[in-house]
């Protein structure tokens, strides 16, 4: 019977879609999300080389806040 075949195919499609959703890890998007969070936590400006440390308020970017060993 043709209908049965159609249902089996549709059912398999639905199942495969669900399985795909479950195993797929969006690596590129995760990296973008990680960058955004790290920039905020470490207070880095987007795209800027982090060679000067920015500390909030008191210190200006021109002064080196910490001596490096």
């Amino acid at each position, binding site marked *: 019977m*043709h*209908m049965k075949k*159609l*249902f089996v195919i*549709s*059912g398999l*499609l*639905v199942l495969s*879609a*669900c399985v*795909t*959703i*479950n195993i*797929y*890890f*969006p*690596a590129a*998007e*995760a*990296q*973008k*999300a*990680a*960058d*955004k*969070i*790290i*920039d*905020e*936590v*470490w*207070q*880095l400006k987007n795209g800027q080389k*982090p*060679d000067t*440390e920015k*500390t*909030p308020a008191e210190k200006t970017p021109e002064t080196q*806040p*910490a001596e*490096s*060993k």
Partner: protein
Amino acid sequence: MMKIIAKTLSLQDIRMQHLAWALLAVTLFALAQLAQAAANMEIDTPAITALKNSMQARHAQLLPHYNSGAVGLTNDGLIAVRDTTAVPLKERGGINSLVASENADRSALYKEIAKANGHPEWEGEVRQTFAGRWIDKAQGGWHYRSGSDWAKK
């Protein structure tokens, strides 16, 4: 495809046709969700924001220790005490608790991101993604784990 479906259905009960369309709709919906999931990761939940703020506040205290090499970045998305000889004795205890609090926040962050995106099982992959990005974005002079050794950026 549609022709075949229509031809098949013309001989069948009309209710079956409705069911077939419903199944097709569910499939399309599932695919649409997949596409949406790929568009962006959810990172704007209250739990994630709170962890982010907590880590940002702690960073001012950790920064001198990253710079001196007392604390380094591990390859599993955490931080670890590396060499405290440069740190005054009375501050050494403080470092341990600072590192422990930071690691607790970081682990919770990875877990929350996986959860916020409907896939708690992604926690490990989120952690690995972060591990690579923390090290990539680390400043010159900071230490990070490379294999079983410490390396300096």
